[in-house]
């Protein structure tokens, strides 16, 4: 088992080191996220009541687009330079290895959104309670976006221009996440119970954590074939 732990730890360190050496590029999704949310008051209306109403949707749509935007670099570079072949030929279970890669991807692309979201939520006038729920939905939802997105990336990584196809594949699967997450935040903002949608998100995350890694692994084997 120590060999497996060593391989998983090495892979995580490698991905974080690669992200660190690309920090300019890695700053793009959070920047994109902040920009979209910031543009809303300018583009729609500075009316506080209106902004408070649309805030959950605005923040979550921005998070969803930022996640979609960051997916491309998940397996692309490794596919192009042959590192993906070496990953597939590792003696350790591929679902675990890709699970670590998705986790690393979430750490650099999903976690920053969690840190930025409260600031942006204050800017749109969300109440402290709603901000707490927003953070909970992002904590449950952004890993879901990474896991679901990784399946799409794994399926399209062998295609020369998979960008549009990736969006078409992944976006419909993102919609339940969007509905439950914004539902929970909107409920919190109006003082309604939020447990229902949060439990749904948690259930979806549990499902994705168990089912997505084998699907990603199988899709990668197909793409490299």
């Amino acid at each position, binding site marked *: 088992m120590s060999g497996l732990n060593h391989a998983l730890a090495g*892979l995580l360190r490698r991905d974080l080191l690669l992200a660190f050496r*690309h920090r300019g590029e890695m700053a793009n999704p959070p920047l994109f996220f902040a920009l979209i949310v910031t543009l809303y008051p300018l583009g729609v209306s500075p009316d506080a009541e209106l902004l408070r109403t649309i805030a959950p949707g605005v923040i979550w749509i921005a998070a969803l687009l930022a996640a979609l935007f960051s997916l491309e670099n998940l397996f692309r570079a490794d596919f192009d330079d042959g590192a993906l*072949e070496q*990953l597939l*030929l590792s*003696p*350790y279970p591929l679902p675990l290895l890709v699970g670590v890669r998705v986790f690393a991807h979430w750490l650099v692309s999903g976690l920053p959104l969690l840190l930025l979201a409260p600031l942006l939520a204050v800017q749109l006038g969300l109440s402290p309670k709603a901000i707490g729920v927003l953070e909970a939905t992002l904590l449950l939802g952004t890993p879901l976006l990474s896991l679901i997105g990784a399946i799409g990336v794994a399926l399209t990584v062998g295609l020369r221009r998979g960008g549009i196809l990736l969006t078409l594949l992944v976006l419909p699967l993102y919609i339940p996440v969007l509905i439950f997450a914004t539902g929970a935040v909107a409920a919190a903002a109006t003082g309604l119970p939020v447990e229902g949608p949060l439990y749904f998100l948690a259930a979806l995350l549990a499902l994705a954590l168990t089912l997505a890694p084998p699907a990603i692994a199988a899709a990668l084997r197909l793409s490299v*074939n």
Partner: protein
Amino acid sequence: MQKSAESSAELEADRLECQRGGRTLFCGLSFALHAGEALLVEGENGSGKTSLLRLLCGLSRPASGEVRWRGRAIAAQRAEYARDMAWLGHQHGVKPELQTFENLAFAAALRGEARRDGVERALETVGLGEQAEVAGRALSAGQKQRLALARLLLSRARLWILDEPFTALDAGGGELVRTLIENHLGEGGLAVLTSHQPVSLQVPLARLGLTG
């Protein structure tokens, strides 16, 4: 080549058929390779050399037939086969952002074989000892090839599958590859390789011609 039914054969290809883009590259291809033997796959560009090698290492699946390692289909023993086999392809998986040492250490960790001193020794062996801290993007094509050879050395795999191992290497590098393969086979290892240059190895070398 004739199909060998000897039980001592370690790597066996059994009536392999390969299709690419709707075209049959080869079919009914069988061979057997024993410990200490090398197989040189020859053929023109597009005759299916790389495709055959990718079938042998399990990256792609044959349209029909199977590859066996020590009597068992490789698809049924992926983890064991991955431990016994090392693949050197056209692309080396050298990350441009990582230093030579990091590149090799992470590649070895992925196989569960990372010892710091081992990594350093492998870099010395392939003549990259001085370049340990150079970023991958600054390495020449030949140096990347040497780095890939170092990964091979670290892997302690019994079967080496090498696609064009002599590419981009200078005379000294070519000599290094020959020595590495001869030592590997001398220790009872196996190798399957392709090459565009004439290969002269002081080892039992079987040849397989693909006609396309």
